[in-house]
């Protein structure tokens, strides 16, 4: 009996011990594998890299750089033929870099780091402009608020593109005001290595882009905005040369961070690349004796000639076709062209043509823009090019069309911007109106928007439905009515 009592005590002791030792649970459940807080500069680094990879890169699924006739595919042509549905699209930009940017902004704001805050704001505006240009109305004012302690929102409403643009202007102006141009925020800024003057120039040039984009629907806002910038160069410095354009240069020797444009020569791009130059591009360059032809394209492997492939055309072989130029658009240090000096000058040319006061004539701006594009590749012979019948400012081609055509060719491979500009201006006319060969939607015209992700039909259905109702005229997700500023 004594023994039994002893054992009973033992049992009770075990029980007590068990109840007592849950105190280490919190420590046990602390994640040993991942950080639960990080400095905002590392979020900025990550967001910058993600932003670069999203909006200024060749994205195969969202085939914008092909829809604008820069390139085309030789075999799997279904995307070129507009086979894109909400199945293939997503809104992961939000939970990706937009959320990181928001978090970093909160931390930078707490730390009183105005310059970083400005960078983060510029990147956010840059991202949102791209997204809304693709989709139209998108969640904006209620976005990214799932973990808001006061007002958590998991079903953000969609805001009109007009209201988004209004806020983008305000955000960029605010960012510009925050910047101390003499400051350097260090290498965590992997785009301009902390050079705040570069950010200021990019910020105001981006404002020019934003204003010009809405110039057909809000001409007075656009005019006032552009004129204000051009009248106050010390308050609103812009990109003034190829050297201070918004280019991101990569780490050519880093296998992860070498240029994302890099085409591995081991893959025999001339015979294997499925992406080749479009027939319209080659013709456009040839028609104008454009010295950019060998920069933009490689001669075909088989013939040594520049041969393009019509968009959507099936049945060609890569070796018979030109792939995109490797030195500028396929090397390990090919820069990512976030915003070119040429684009700034084309914006000014168009503004001047509108009769707005930008301190120069439309022709001067137009010709400076073309020179800027030539300078970008170290090309000479601008003057003779400007005399080409299809380039000449006074050669008979409508000047608005000339600006549109030349802007398109200068924006080579910047698919997002070129697609937006083609939709806004209608130039080049061929690109704006010609359906790809074998389009899956014959007679529906050219693509006007990226279809909303199907995941929104499941995860945010009511707001998506409201957004569609607010943008009548969309046909088959991507045709019919364009986005708000697309009234062409």
């Amino acid at each position, binding site marked *: 009996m004594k023994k039994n009592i002893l054992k009973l005590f033992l049992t009770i002791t075990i029980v007590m011990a068990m*109840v007592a030792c849950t105190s280490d649970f919190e420590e046990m459940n602390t994640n040993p594998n991942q950080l639960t807080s990080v400095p905002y500069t590392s979020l900025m680094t990550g967001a910058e890299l993600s932003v670069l990879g999203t909006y200024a890169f060749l994205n195969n699924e969202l085939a914008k750089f092909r829809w604008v006739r820069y390139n085309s595919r030789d075999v799997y042509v279904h995307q070129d033929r507009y086979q894109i549905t909400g199945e293939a699209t997503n809104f992961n930009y939000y939970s990706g870099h937009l959320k990181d940017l928001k978090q970093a902004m909160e931390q930078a704001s707490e730390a009183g780091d105005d310059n970083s805050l400005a960078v983060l704001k510029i990147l956010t505006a840059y991202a949102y402009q791209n997204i809304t240009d693709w989709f139209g109305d998108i969640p904006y004012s209620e976005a990214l608020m799932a973990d808001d302690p006061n007002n958590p929102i998991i079903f*953000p409403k969609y805001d009109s593109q007009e209201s988004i643009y209004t806020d983008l202007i305000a955000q960029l102006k605010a960012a510009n005001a925050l910047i101390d141009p003499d400051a350097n925020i260090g290498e965590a800024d992997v785009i301009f290595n902390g050079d705040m003057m570069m950010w200021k120039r990019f910020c105001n040039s981006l404002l020019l882009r934003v204003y010009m984009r809405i110039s057909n629907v809000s001409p007075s806002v656009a005019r006032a905005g552009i004129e204000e910038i051009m009248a106050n160069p010390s308050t609103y410095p812009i990109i003034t040369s190829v050297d201070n354009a918004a280019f991101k240069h990569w780490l050519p020797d880093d296998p992860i961070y070498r240029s994302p444009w890099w085409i591995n020569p081991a893959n025999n791009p001339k*015979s294997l690349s499925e992406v080749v130059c479009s027939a319209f591009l080659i013709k456009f360059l040839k028609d104008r004796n454009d010295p950019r032809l060998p920069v933009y394209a490689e001669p075909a492997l088989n013939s040594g000639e520049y041969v393009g492939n019509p968009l959507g055309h099936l049945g060609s072989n890569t070796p018979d076709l030109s792939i995109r130029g490797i030195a500028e658009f396929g090397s390990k240090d090919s820069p990512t062209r976030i915003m070119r000096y040429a684009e700034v000058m084309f914006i000014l040319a168009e503004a001047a043509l509108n009769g707005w006061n930008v301190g120069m004539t439309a022709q001067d701006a137009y010709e400076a823009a073309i020179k800027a594009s030539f300078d970008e590749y170290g090309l000479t012979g601008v003057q003779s090019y400007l005399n080409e019948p299809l380039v000449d400012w006074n050669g008979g081609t409508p000047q608005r069309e000339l600006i549109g055509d030349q802007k398109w060719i200068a924006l080579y491979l910047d698919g997002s911007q070129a697609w937006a500009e083609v939709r806004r201006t209608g130039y080049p006319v061929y690109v704006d109106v010609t359906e790809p060969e074998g389009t899956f939607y014959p007679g529906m015209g050219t693509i006007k928007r990226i279809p909303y992700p199907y995941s929104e039909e499941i995860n945010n259905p009511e707001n998506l439905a409201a957004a569609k109702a607010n943008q009548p005229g969309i046909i088959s997700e991507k045709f019919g009515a364009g986005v708000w500023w697309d009234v062409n």
Partner: protein
Amino acid sequence: MKKKSKTLWALYKPIPSLKIFMIMRIMVFLLILGVIHVMGKDSYSQNTKVSLNMNDVTVGQVLNTIESQSEFYFIYNPKLVDVNRKVNIHARNEKIEKVLDQLFNGTNIEHMVLDRQVVLSPKVLLASSRKAEKRLQQQQITVTGTVTDEKGDPLPGVNIIVKGTVQGTITDADGKYTLSVAPGATLVFSYVGYKTQEIPVDNQTTVNVTMAESTVGINEVVVTALGITRERKALGYAVQDISGDDIEKTAETNVINALAGKSAGVFVNSSNGNVGASSRIIIRGNNSLRGGNQPLFVVDGVPIDNSLVSSSRGGYDYTDMGNRAADINPADIAEMTILKGANAAALYGARGANGVVLITTKTGSRSGFSVELGNSTTFSNPLRLPDFQNQYGQGGGGQYWYYDGLNGGKYDGVDESFGPELDYVVKAEDIQPGGKLYWAVEAGFPQTVGEILKLPQFNSPIDPVTGERIPTPWISHPDNVKNFYETGIKRITSASLSNGGDWGAVRLSLTNSDEKGMLPNTNLIKNTVSFSGQTNLTEKLSFDIRGSYINLHGNMSGSGYTFNNVNMQTIWGARQVDWAWLKDHIETEDGRPISWINRWHNNPYWIQYKNLNPMKENRVIGKASVNYQFTDWLSLMGRIGTDASNQQVELKRAYYGINDKEGRYQVTNYTRQEINADFLLSANKKINSDLTLRGNFGGNIMNKQYREQGSYVSKLVVPNNYSLANAKETPTTKYYKSEKEIQSLYGDLSVGFKDQLFLDLTGRNDWSSTLPVDANSYFYPSATFSWIFTETFGLDPSIFSFGKIRYGWAQVGNDTDPYRLDLIYSAGNPYGTNPRYSIGNTMPPLKLKNELITSNEIGLDLRFFNNRFGIDVTVYKSKAENQILSAAISPTSGYNSQLINAGRIDNQGVEIMLHTTPVQTNDFSWDVMVNWSKNKNKVVALSGDIESLELYKTEGNRITVVAPVGGSYGDMMGTGFVYHENGKIIVGKDGKPLYSEVRKLGNIMPDWLGSINNSFSYKGLHFSFLIDAKVGGDLYSRTDQDGFVTGTLKEIPGIVGTTVGLNDRGGEIRGKLEDGGGYLVDGVFEDGTPNNVYLYLNDARWGLFRHGEANLYDATYVKLREVSLSYSLPSNVVSKINLSGINIGVFARNVAILYTPEIISFDPEVSNRNASQTSQGSTYGSPPSARNIGFRVRFTY
């Protein structure tokens, strides 16, 4: 029943000398008969008359005739009685003695009639046995022994009778008995709920017996939660058990597969027929929204790991490495018990919420030394392969020629089969300008009229002068894919030694399983050493130690949408390719692979032999428990158990591969360890003759640790040397660890009244490390009740043998995974020296508490006609609330998902088990077991306003699998066709089907499951076959989707239809429109008029059927799951070679698909990648399932 006595001969163990043998037998008979004679009140032989009129017949025929017209039966040794002697016999209403006198007149055979039995024997023998009769009665020996159950526990109250007599006894409380018998007697041991055994005494003075439970018993003891054994009749919930023999008989290596069709409410899905492929098991539907839903596996009281392991280098290279419960050696399993749902598993807490599979391993028998040797060999072949077309070869637009396989020729960089017609005999007009084959002539490949088209192909010889390929005939290879699969061979060899006695029992077993897969160069070798030992140290203190060491290693094959899965290449592989040629030409002399297309696919044999996916694992599962019996009613058990494994998974990619030009090596080590320490204080007391009380109080600490350490290099310096040092770059390393602990206290109390009313109450409190500190403790109770009403009403057992009604209510709480409470930042590759982070995509919970499942079940167990017919019906309903789940939310909210306590899922269902024994004689029995179950799932609520929870996307992203409010878990959403009111699909003006909005197209889960097992036993011969059916549920086939686009498949069921041959206007379906060819979608225009827009398939195919609905199929099947035939050699034969048993068998598993609603190109049971949740409901180039046929043999000494 009449012929009983003849077979009695066989029951006697032979003695070497025939004469002594004979004498002995006769004596025993006389003894038996004597007793019967004395007991008998009416003499049948005196009152029965026989009439015969037979000429020129054998004695045997006469005896048979008598037997057939009367109840007499004859006992004789055919070696001593000449039954072939021809006689004439005439008798009319004569007594049997008279007839026999006439029959054996003039022979030395004497007869002795005792009631219905007639003994025929040579006169000398019979006389001597008569003399011996008296002597024998005085020569009885005293036999003692102990009767135990399979677990070695003594069985009190077992009936023991001397065969053929009424002499007998029962065992006492310790299972012991003493009985005086003749030395040659046979003892019959019987006990309700156990199989009756007959054991010859053979001069032994100690006969110990282990009683095996019978499958349809009533009083049988079943293992319930925490290893507590209970009488089945007292349980208030359904449990189903499966014997180790049943699992072993078809030599299945993954225990989960062996459960298919064996139990109601249990849904087994084996992913495919690859060696080591994983399998999934769902009991009573999906309760949890966050995947998993797998039951807990418990071996001898120790929970074990059943995680899915794979090797992957991202989406395009994936290998299923199996589910870890498959490590359990079926040869060591004595019994598996399935606890279904919360009621049965309440004491296991959260981990048992999806049910529990309890595995009890074999122990040594306390009846003495024995050796068992077993071997099985199984052959596997693909059960079903896609039906490939053989009319068109590689290319596009009807053209093709090979230059470099990189698009250097005509379409030689295209892995699609829209090229020239195969086996096409060239006609004169074809090679004229404008002719069908003029392009070939133009390209410089002249054709001969009347001969088969000749084109340069990847395996055409090269002209040594020009260096160009010489065109070779463009011919079909219909069996290229089929012949790629080899016959898989699996050999399982096991040996076990066991010994036991009053001191305890030990068993040691060794098993080797050597499996070679159907895919070339795949294999899996598994070695298991198991030990089990039980001993009583003192009368009160006993130990039980069991453990297994498992070692396995092998090379697995890719699955899923991966270039490493050769089965994917079969869908993308051009139809003219001669795979046999590729087998003989794997690589060039400098090690570069030879392929039919250098742009997209490696040579399939090169993949199998050069790109390896090795896996090895060491695992120890063991427990030690000590039991102290304070008094006869109170005991304390302490136990510690562990499951610890170390697994290494490698991925070796050879140089020059299309996806890894410089090779790749990846190695990941997984260390998993779970330790459970528990105690259980048990009381079991009969308060008075009516009232029994039993109770348990226990506690458990579960600590689970996981480590994953992996590294890879994607560029090797030296080809085909796989080490991390052989790298052109710094290896990338991943290290992840996690730890979780749950502490628990629990108890139960059972009250039994008059053995007919039972009430059970349980309660458990868990403390989990994974929940917030202020919410980490949670309690949940259960109550069950059962009433055996047949006992109460005293019904006639020969008609209504047993009837029980039961009811149970239970709650089970559940926690979550470690480290889910905090927001985490994921690290990216640092940019230069700048760190890069991003906010995790899952929003951490604002508040979190435990999940709670509440379950109700009611059941009825009825047996009739001495248990010849039984039906057990269970109806259950469970609701799972406050689920901790990662709910997909719009990424625009800032996160892709959110961790919430939300939602309610209800499952309700019916399970019916029916068994009957239509025929049962002493020699022959026919048993039928039917299982049927239906589960209905309803998502009642999700979080807040969320209408639908995305679970995952199926292969190809056409279908999103969701849990929508008001719908069911696993609903499949996607775009479908638009239907006209006349039922046809609507096509646009372009002849292509319109798209509907995203809508519900199906569900991944079946509507109901059923199985029927028939087993037949005749003497030692046993035959059974199992048919099981899964009805309902849908499957998205990317196999068919891509098979249409690539043009490899002949027929796509559903709307797509035939892809080769002629269309309804007589032109080729794949032909050009101007030739009258073209493909016509079977649909109507919006105004209802039939579609008449033919499409050039080569151009239209890519966009034509991008509807989720186009390749969604009803996954219903009826399968012949198992067939098995086994034979136990008679003991008199076996004993001649000094063995106590030989059992041989042949079997087949996954034998045939008996029915599918549509003729689909795959086994509807296969899943895309592995057995994971996200692989359910889709298939893509999935490895075919295997049809297994084998034989086995087992020797027992």
